[in-house]
């Protein structure tokens, strides 16, 4: 706790401030700050006594597990929520941010996760769309020059102004969005998990753009799960935990282990569990798998008790291979054998009958049943086993759900809560719970199983995955998270543009080899 306290003292904004008192010390001038912010939703306190300041030209990381209060803080700063208590200061002056528009007028701009660009309009039109600076009779050449200058400043001069946004990659769209906010004098850019869907090259571009933003004297609030990014881009990091501010620390004085400890409230321990000792017979054999337009002639061989990672960036085909094996791709072709029996692709029901279960990283779209209870989610795939003449044995199902909840580490008292009220990590556990303990252990397919899940829950998910290996499952996982691939994969297959580049056993895996394989076109050509 002493570390926490000293870090707290090091943060000027966290020092006790009389309500209504204004800070006027010039050295740590604050562009935007909050003082003693409280916000509750019903009985749950989302934010408790949060005070912080962000200086000009600062890139501030905000870290914390899911439910720590990061998103609530962002929503208060962007005028979506109003705090129950406390003030927001703009240049040291209390400001009322009751609508998103007011927040924008104060120069607080969020780079939306779902980008707010119009795909059919050109880059230039998108940059100026809705801007108050465009007069009714506008001078096009002038606006054009401004747009081009802003893009150049962000290191994105390769983006053509007349190109429709729909033709741009996700990372380029983010750059356009940032340019759009810059042209309307945003002084603080807020980015909430901006890199979740980006490739490494695109992430580098975004980072250099943020550095350009910083050089302009504007500030950035950077919210992320990825600790590596915090160290790469941020000046200081503020850690939230359970709605409280743990500490704000400069990153050059904070070790990675200490940062994790701040986020979790305890030492992180071993993130990746030991590998499984027992290996069994081949559970899944894939030969000549082709998906028109994305994957060409893919082959693999997974044994029971083994985790195979298909490593590839977005668009490499890794996610598509997993979806195809789950039966979710209609025009997949190839020979697939599960526990010695042939499987015809194209039907999730057929795949499930052969013991192939799919856990998606996109929980909202194809993972959990958000409106149904935890219990119903857990037993979703075993209704047939627990029904007589079509009638459910509800008592038995309740017992099964209780057992599964315990197995995957979901609090049994929450069995009747709605799935959507659970954190991302717990929702993912539901998807696991519904896939395991089948009559005979089969294959678990996963697509980015820890996407959007915080560090603490991640370690728990990894431990669960290993325990499924102990039970005799074969695990196949598509992932673009390098740390995860290196830490978890018994076998790693690297993929570039639909073609297999390399295959590595655990002892041969190294991060730079994988990076080279999945990003380097030359390697794929051979």
């Amino acid at each position: 706790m002493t570390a926490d306290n000293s870090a707290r003292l090091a943060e000027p904004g966290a020092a006790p401030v009389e309500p209504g008192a204004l800070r006027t010390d010039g050295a740590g001038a604050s562009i935007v700050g909050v003082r003693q912010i409280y916000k509750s939703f019903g009985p749950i306190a989302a934010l408790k006594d949060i005070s912080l300041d962000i200086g000009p030209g600062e890139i501030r990381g905000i870290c914390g597990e899911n439910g720590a209060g990061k998103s609530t803080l962002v929503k208060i700063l962007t005028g979506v929520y109003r705090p129950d208590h406390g003030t927001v200061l703009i240049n040291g002056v209390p400001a009322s941010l009751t609508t998103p528009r007011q927040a924008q007028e104060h120069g607080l701009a969020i780079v939306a996760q779902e980008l707010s660009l119009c795909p059919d309009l050109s880059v230039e039109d998108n940059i100026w769309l809705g801007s108050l600076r465009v007069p009714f009779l506008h001078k096009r050449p002038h606006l054009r020059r401004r747009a081009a200058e802003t893009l150049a400043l962000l290191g994105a001069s390769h983006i053509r102004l007349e190109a429709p946004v729909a033709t741009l990659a996700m990372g380029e769209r983010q750059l356009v969005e940032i340019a759009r906010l810059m042209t309307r004098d945003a002084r603080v850019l807020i980015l909430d998990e901006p890199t979740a869907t980006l490739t490494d090259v695109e992430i580098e571009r975004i980072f250099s753009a943020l550095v350009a933003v910083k050089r302009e004297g504007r500030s950035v609030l950077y919210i992320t799960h990825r600790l590596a990014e915090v160290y790469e881009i941020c000046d200081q990091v503020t850690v939230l935990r359970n709605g409280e501010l743990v500490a704000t620390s400069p990153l050059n004085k904070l070790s990675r282990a200490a940062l994790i400890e701040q986020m979790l409230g305890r030492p992180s321990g071993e993130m990746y569990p030991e590998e499984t000792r027992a290996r069994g017979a081949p559970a899944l054999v894939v030969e000549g798998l082709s998906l028109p337009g994305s994957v060409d002639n893919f082959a693999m061989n997974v044994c029971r008790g083994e985790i195979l990672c298909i490593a590839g960036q977005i668009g490499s085909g890794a996610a598509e291979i997993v979806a195809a094996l789950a039966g979710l791709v209609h025009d997949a072709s190839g020979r697939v054998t599960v526990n010695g029996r042939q499987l015809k692709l194209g039907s999730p029901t057929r795949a499930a009958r052969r013991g192939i279960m799919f856990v998606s990283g996109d929980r909202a779209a194809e993972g959990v049943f958000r409106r149904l209870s935890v219990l119903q989610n857990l037993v979703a795939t075993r209704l047939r086993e627990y029904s007589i003449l079509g009638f459910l044995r509800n008592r038995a199902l309740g017992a099964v759900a209780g057992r599964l909840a315990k197995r995957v580490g979901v609090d049994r008292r929450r069995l009747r809560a709605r799935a959507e009220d659970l954190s991302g990590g717990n929702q993912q556990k539901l998807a696991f719970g519904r896939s395991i303990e089948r009559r005979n252990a089969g294959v678990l397919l996963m697509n980015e199983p820890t996407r959007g899940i915080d560090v603490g829950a991640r370690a728990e998910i990894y431990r669960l995955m290993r325990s499924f290996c102990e039970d005799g499952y074969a695990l196949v996982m598509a992932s673009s998270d390098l740390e995860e691939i290196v830490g978890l994969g018994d076998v790693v297959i690297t993929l570039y543009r639909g073609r297999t580049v390399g295959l590595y056993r655990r002892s041969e895996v190294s991060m730079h080899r994988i990076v080279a394989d999945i990003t380097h076109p030359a390697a794929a050509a051979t």
Partner: protein
Amino acid sequence: MTDQGLAIAWRGAWRLPLPSSRRGQILVAIRGAALLTLLVIVATTPGFFTAVSLFSLLNTTSFIGCVAVGMTFITLSGNIMSFALSATLSTSGMVFMAALPLGLPAALLAAFAYGAALTGFQGAVIGYFRANPIIVSMAALALITGGATLITQGHGIYPEGNAAAALKGRVLGVPMPLAAFIVTAVAAQIVLSFTRFGRQLYMVGSNWRAALAAGLEPARVVLGAYAAAGLCTALAGILMAARYSSGDLEIGLGFDYSAISAVLVGGTAISGGEGSAIRSLIGAFIIAVCQVLLLLHGFSTQIQYLAIGLIVLFVIMLQTLADTE
């Protein structure tokens, strides 16, 4: 300890608690207040329970209610509503009347089979081809109306004899339509709450992709939901035909809208996956009570339509608020 935990887990495992957010709780409070207001108005309106109109309205409500229970299956499956149920109602009444010379059991069988097959087919198109449910139901409406007019040359069907008289009586003192409505709602609720099909219906309505990825067969479940809707609708058609002793294309006119009103007022989510048949029953009665009240206070039929339109609009706005948290 473990047993106790399980017992707690089991008790109310299928029930969902009050919404955790303040907004959700406010919405529940608004619903409760609206219901309370209605009860107060009922209690202070003289002659509510003795009104002759109450009984005639109860019959109409029961017919609409059967369709509403059927519509509940469609709404729960995530397919909003069907515009073809009114035409299905009237044509299954016609099928019933046409088959009546073969005997009551045969006529019942024919009408139920017709309703289930016709609506089930729409469900198959929607489930297997992922066709837009509203458009499919409109196409079906045109096909059914056109086909029926072609076959009957626009005439009603008036069978001889009195074979359907048994359907006009009372069951334990309760008018047949009302009894049928309540039994239908209860049976539907049993299917929804206690069968595998019912549970899968909620899953498909809640998240089609997740149901598919989990290895369920959502298309089949949607087909089942539409077939069930067809059965409920056919029942309403049979009872109406028996009551008027004729099969006519006009008898179910406007029932689609009344039925979806009952479903929504009952509180079933328009986006699917949440709701119940009993809620639709309550919704149908609430609308009926509102109609009687307006009648007793001397408002015309036009005003009644207006009022119900406003109520449905209000309910939809409440639902949208609850969803966009």
